[in-house]
């Protein structure tokens, strides 16, 4: 067995790196909203970086462990406790059978990620465990967690090597204003120069209309040359769509694969960690960068995660048991 969901929280779903390979067939990618936080959580517990985790939004779930395992909670700090004792985020820790993980309330960011050593026993659908609620596939029957759900572990472990090294400083800090780097395009040429200047010069505020599909923002109108409609084309994670009304929408994990509105720019991969943690009221300035700088930043981030894996000494948990190394 596993964990039993005593309370599901606001919106808790099983997510991994997403369902790639089926975009040409209209299947949304889904996956976590903050891929870096997911990867760190998995590295800390010795999993493959892209193993499925629980993504918890604003108010976390209550999970009773019916089997011991090692877990880590990363991303926004939703106030995790274990049997009512606070536990650190961005650190692996052991949970004993019968203990309950709870979340007391949002402190930083918006979304927390819980990684379980050895992974969750959730079937792969089209190569991914990610929940895609609109098409009702992946995760637990394609839906968010509900009270009474039981989720199995695939290969749980009561303890893990180098536990004390499996800890880094929390990465999501208490802020309300962010600079988010973008590369311009694909339809930046459909905006006036004044429109581009507005987009890059003004501050935009996250509204309540913010879900896993997209994040609507409020702020000065971004001027088009001739309206915001286009013949539909593909939409990437972090695309900033600007319909004719001129207010930006950042397209996120559950976005449709294609769409018919102008996209002025795209958030760079290295800054997905920022947009995945935004919440209503947060303020964002968009900062233009080059494709070369964006790809450099992405490769630098990958190198940092590889270094973290080395530091944590992550031989996979499952490979540990047969040969106990001598110190």
């Amino acid at each position: 067995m596993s964990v039993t969901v005593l309370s599901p929280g606001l919106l808790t779903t099983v997510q991994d790196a997403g369902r790639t390979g089926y975009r040409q067939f209209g299947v949304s990618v889904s996956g976590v909203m903050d891929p870096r936080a997911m990867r760190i959580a998995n590295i800390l517990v010795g999993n493959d970086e892209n193993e499925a985790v629980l993504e918890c939004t604003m108010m976390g779930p209550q999970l009773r462990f019916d089997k011991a395992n090692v877990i880590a909670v990363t991303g926004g700090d939703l106030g995790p406790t274990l049997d009512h004792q606070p536990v650190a985020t961005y650190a692996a820790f052991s949970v004993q059978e019968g203990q309950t993980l709870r979340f007391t309330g949002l402190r930083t960011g918006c979304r927390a990620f819980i990684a379980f050593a050895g992974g969750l026993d959730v079937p792969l659908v089209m190569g991914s465990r990610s929940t895609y609620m609109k098409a009702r596939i992946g995760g637990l029957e394609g839906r968010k967690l509900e009270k009474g759900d039981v989720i199995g572990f695939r290969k749980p472990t009561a303890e893990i090597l180098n536990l004390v090294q499996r800890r880094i400083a929390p990465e999501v800090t208490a802020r309300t204003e962010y600079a988010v780097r973008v590369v311009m395009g694909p339809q930046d040429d459909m905006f006036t120069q004044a429109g581009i200047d507005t987009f890059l010069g003004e501050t935009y505020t996250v509204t309540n209309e913010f879900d896993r599909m997209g994040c609507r923002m409020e702020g000065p109108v971004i001027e088009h040359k001739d309206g915001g409609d286009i013949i539909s084309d593909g939409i990437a994670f972090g695309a900033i769509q600007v319909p004719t009304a001129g207010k930006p929408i950042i397209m996120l994990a559950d976005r449709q694969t294609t769409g018919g509105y102008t996209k002025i720019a795209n958030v760079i991969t290295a800054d997905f960690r920022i947009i995945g943690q935004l919440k209503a009221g947060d303020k964002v300035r968009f900062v233009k960068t080059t494709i070369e700088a964006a790809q450099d930043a992405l490769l630098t981030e990958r190198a940092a995660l590889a270094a973290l894996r080395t530091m944590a000494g992550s031989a996979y948990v499952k490979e540990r048991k047969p040969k106990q190394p001598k110190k």
Partner: protein
Amino acid sequence: MPDVRFLLTGDTSLSAEFGNEISESTNAQIRAFTIALEKSGVPGIVELVPTYRSCMIHYDPGVISYRALTKRLEGLLGQLGSIEIPPSDVLEVPVLYGGEMGPDLAFVAEHAGISEQEVVDIHTSTEYLIYMLGFTPGFTYLGGMSDKIETPRLKQPRVKIPAGSVGIAGKQTGVYPIDSPGGWQLIGRTPVKMYDPNRETPILPKAGQYIKFRAIDQAEYDEIADLAEKGKYVCRTHPREEAAK
């Protein structure tokens, strides 16, 4: 060489844009380019998503940078004329028209001023180009429906339309791949599962292919439905007769 623009869509994908209109010739170019790119062995390609007028190319910048990739793509475009592109496949989709399965067939016929049988004859006479898939898993954007059977959407959308329903909305026709609400005029239903997440090929139609509907009767519907339920029905496909060019 077609006049193609490479547009940035973030730092892990780009859009190769072949034009600014919905046309069969643009779509044929995109299909040829997609096939050529799949065969090319350009490293780092993750996924290709053809749409009406472009092909979105997802790639891994850890393997190939934007500059290096666009250089390779330009080279590929230059060779496009010399690459053998097979003709498109036609996917045959059996449909039981009218009755309970197609509650709006009578309305479509009345709106067109023709008989129900004539609507079916017109609807089954065309090979519809699949420009792209999107909106929901397996939903096809088809082109080529006769304007004789154009019908406006329902004024009051239905709350639940069963998967497999074949409908008309304005100039468009298509199949609902999953149960969903919608305002299309329903003229029939296919027993074939266009989308089944647990099947080896989850989605049957592919951009660049054509769909041809074939009218069937209740007995054949039941037979195909039974096979489809067991995962044993295979839609017939055949290469399109006229050359892809």
